[in-house]
């Protein structure tokens, strides 16, 4: 109830603010309006930058390029006597196309390299603007055929600002936003839970570029003149970025607050300090980087200030469900939680997954050597072998984290050679990682909801969040529902990892050492889970594990790898008597002594391993 009221109050305050800004040019003088205009432009730039940086985690330092390209495209169109709206549309189109083209090389880069690659675009664009004289008029710049347009430019940019904010809200409520957030946390895991990351990255860059272009076009229109230094200069390019970071990148209100505070300060400094503007910008940028790269809204004292604490809410704090929803009981199936998984009908005789001569080589190191195996639907297979024998590499070959250097993987009669990671996930291969890799800055609920939003029958975020509760209940994590995943303990992370793999609605589940390092009770729980998902939902399981006592309770057979080669395949009780397996695990001397003992009492030999 309280939540709903503060929401209405928020909308009313926002509406009143926008209205007040809308009448400003009619009551204030041109000077005030100009200042407000630059603040609006800075917000469009900063917020559109944050879609790529705050949401997706890619620090695009060349965002100003889009501003510049937009400004040039718009000016050229306007000089060519095109109508205003068409010129803006043209600017957006050209800029989005440019973003599409440069996204190809740029998204091959990560982290610092991406930041650098994008920053290097600025001097490139400047050179282009100076030297493509027939198009850009070189160093002379372009003079636009317009008179006083401050008022209309201001009103349009106010509208665009409102639109920018609405787009931000929409992104955060949509599957698209969750795709971005999963990319920000771990691209590889995002793919293995079914997110197609390449188009998402391309689209968000184009969206961000489009809004940057509008900002550039409006600024050019208002100034009625542009030249290369004003739109591609390194001095100005990072100011919007610094503004967003100042308050808090990735927060709903961060860009707005940061821009309001700093743009106002910047205007004041521009008037009162003469001559050292670049030094001053540099100093602001430097100090923000040094002292508050996470934003001042994330500082601890902010949480205690009433109004500010509302602005400082992280994205997932808005994800509250209504009390009625929260009270909904998760469906039960006898004593166990009923998971919203389809029951896979057993198809006898046909193998679900078939590896044909799979090889994986890293340089001269053969990690998986000519492995062929076949697993029927509904089997639970243990995959064992000493450390470094290629078990995890084999998993990586199946889920396409690695591309096998030889051989074929057939899944449900389909050749996976051409399939991408996310396609394989959607075909029905779920996996856990040996060291759990949750999406750290998302909640437990969101972690489970993401695979539900991106599998064969994608759910809306709202439905996915609801369905996620069953999986969380199943994993006994209900008390951590709204907690960030990076605050979980190791055991909880393993439970989350397993539940997230199940939420991929897999036909084949690859479980990588989910029980190692756990207490006997916790191990027993995983054993029961693995048996349950097979018996109840018909999920085929391959389980990599060193704990034989756990394996022997559920596996139908085990496969043994040694130095990348398959050396045994059969029931556990037989495999542990196999000479090659024994020598692999215990060395040849131990094998000799075990052999003599085994001859005396065959039962005890099993216990040795």
């Amino acid at each position, binding site marked *: 109830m309280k939540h709903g009221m503060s929401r209405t109050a928020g909308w009313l305050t926002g509406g009143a603010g926008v209205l007040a800004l809308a009448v400003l040019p009619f009551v204030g003088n041109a000077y005030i309006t100009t200042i407000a205009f630059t603040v609006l432009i800075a917000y469009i730039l900063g917020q559109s930058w944050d879609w790529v940086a705050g949401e997706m985690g890619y620090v695009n330092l060349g965002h100003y390029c889009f501003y510049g390209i937009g400004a040039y495209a718009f000016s050229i169109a306007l000089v060519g006597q095109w109508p205003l709206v068409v010129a803006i549309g043209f600017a957006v189109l050209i800029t989005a196309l440019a973003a599409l083209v440069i996204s190809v090389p740029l998204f091959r880069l990560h982290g610092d390299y991406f*930041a*650098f690659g994008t920053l*290097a675009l600025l001097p490139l664009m400047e050179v282009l603007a100076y030297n493509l004289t027939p198009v850009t008029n070189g160093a002379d710049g372009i003079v636009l055929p317009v008179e006083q347009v401050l008022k209309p430019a201001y009103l349009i940019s106010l509208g665009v600002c409102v639109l920018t904010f609405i787009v931000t809200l929409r992104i955060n409520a949509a599957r698209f936003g969750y795709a971005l957030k999963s990319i920000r946390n771990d691209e590889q895991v995002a793919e293995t839970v079914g997110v197609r990351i390449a188009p998402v990255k391309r689209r968000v860059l184009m969206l961000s570029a489009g809004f940057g272009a509008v900002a550039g076009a409006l600024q050019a229109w208002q100034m009625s003149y542009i030249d290369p230094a004003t739109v591609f200069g390194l001095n100005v390019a990072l100011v919007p970025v610094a503004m967003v970071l100042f308050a808090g990148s990735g927060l709903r209100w961060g860009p707005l607050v940061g821009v309001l505070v700093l743009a106002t300060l910047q205007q004041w400094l521009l008037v009162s300090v003469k001559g050292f503007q*670049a030094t001053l910008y540099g100093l602001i940028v*430097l100090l923000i980087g*040094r002292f508050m*790269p996470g934003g001042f809204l994330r500082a601890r004292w902010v949480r205690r200030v009433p109004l500010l604490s509302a602005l400082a809410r992280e994205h997932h704090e808005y994800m509250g469900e209504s009390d009625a929803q929260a009270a909904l009981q998760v469906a039960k199936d006898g004593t166990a939680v009923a998971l919203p998984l389809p029951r896979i009908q057993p198809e006898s005789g046909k193998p679900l997954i078939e590896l044909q001569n799979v090889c994986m080589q890293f340089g001269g190191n053969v990690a998986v050597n000519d492995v062929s195996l076949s697993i029927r639907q509904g089997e639970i297979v243990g995959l064992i072998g000493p450390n470094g024998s290629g078990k995890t590499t084999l998993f990586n070959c199946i889920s396409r984290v690695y591309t096998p250097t030889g051989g074929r993987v057939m899944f449900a009669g389909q050749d996976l050679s051409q399939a991408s990671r996310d396609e394989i996930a959607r075909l029905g291969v779920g996996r856990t990682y040996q060291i759990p890799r949750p999406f750290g800055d998302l909640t437990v609920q969101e972690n489970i909801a993401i695979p539900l939003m991106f599998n064969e029958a994608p759910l809306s975020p709202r439905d996915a969040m609801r369905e996620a509760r069953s999986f969380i209940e199943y994993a006994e994590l209900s008390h951590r529902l709204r907690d960030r995943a990076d605050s979980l303990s190791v055991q909880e992370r393993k439970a989350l990892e397993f539940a997230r793999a199940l939420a991929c609605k897999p036909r084949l589940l690859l479980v990588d050492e989910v029980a190692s390092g756990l207490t006997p009770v916790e191990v027993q729980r995983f054993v029961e889970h693995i048996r349950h998902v097979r018996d109840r939902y018909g999920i085929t399981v391959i389980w990599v594990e060193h704990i034989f006592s756990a394996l022997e309770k559920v596996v139908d057979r085990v496969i043994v790898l040694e130095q990348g080669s398959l050396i045994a395949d059969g029931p556990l009780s037989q495999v542990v008597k196999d000479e090659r397996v024994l020598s692999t695990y215990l060395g040849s001397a131990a094998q000799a002594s075990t052999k003599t003992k085994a001859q005396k009492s065959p039962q005890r030999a099993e216990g040795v391993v």
Partner: protein
Amino acid sequence: MEVLLQVLIGGVLLGGLYALVAFGLSLIYGVVRILNFAHGTLLAVSGVLASLAYASWQLHPLLIAVLLAPLLFVCAYGYYQVLLRPLSKRNHFESTVGTVLVTVGTLMILSDLTAKAAGATQRNIPLRLEALEFGEIVISTTQLLILLGIALLTVVMHLILTCTWFGRAVRAVTQDPVGAQICGVQSTRMKALTFAFGSATVAVAAVLYVLSFPVDPYMGFGLTVKAFTIIVVGGVGNLPGALLAGIFLGVAEGLTGLYWKPEWAPALSVVLMLLILVAFPKGVGVKA
């Protein structure tokens, strides 16, 4: 033909200087994992300082380099400790954007203050020794000396990296920071020292640069871009790779100027870098 050879020699010279800039950046990036966006600007500012020192007191360029290097070492050491080191304790996103903003802010401050203090004009050290003529080709003794200086500095850097404890520690931290720490390398101290050392190499590079090409306060970032391209091509921490890549870039720029238009030369490195990244996302060079 003579023109082509002349351009080639100029290209090798310029490329060697680019490589020197890249050495420092590469060492710093390898150990500290910070992309120092102000690295090239440091060269530009040092170059301006060197030319001023030459113009005012007629100091020998070699002496200028010897004086400038420890100065930069001390300044960079303090700079790292005060402004960059505290950021390494933050989370990944924050330390990335934090270091970017700090170094870019430094870049803006350095170029603006230098321009205000010394003027935004181009400067060099007009040291002109007599020219040597090999048939049709004319090489100035200055150019030869610079080439010698580049070669010498490369050899010295290589010896430092391979034969001293400091160099081995640098390479160890570059390859595996945690492993190096376990073996007794104090990685926090190493980071500060490497940052300072990498910055001090700029002093020598700056003096050599300003002997043959003009510098101005705003040219720095262009140099950083080139140095980074060289690292991408040559491999992080790989000096021979960087030297080859640098010479390749210098010659390519020279040829662009000769066969096309000189004003396009600055764009070459960015385009080259993007193309290389499309073709070889992990860099071309062999890891040192």
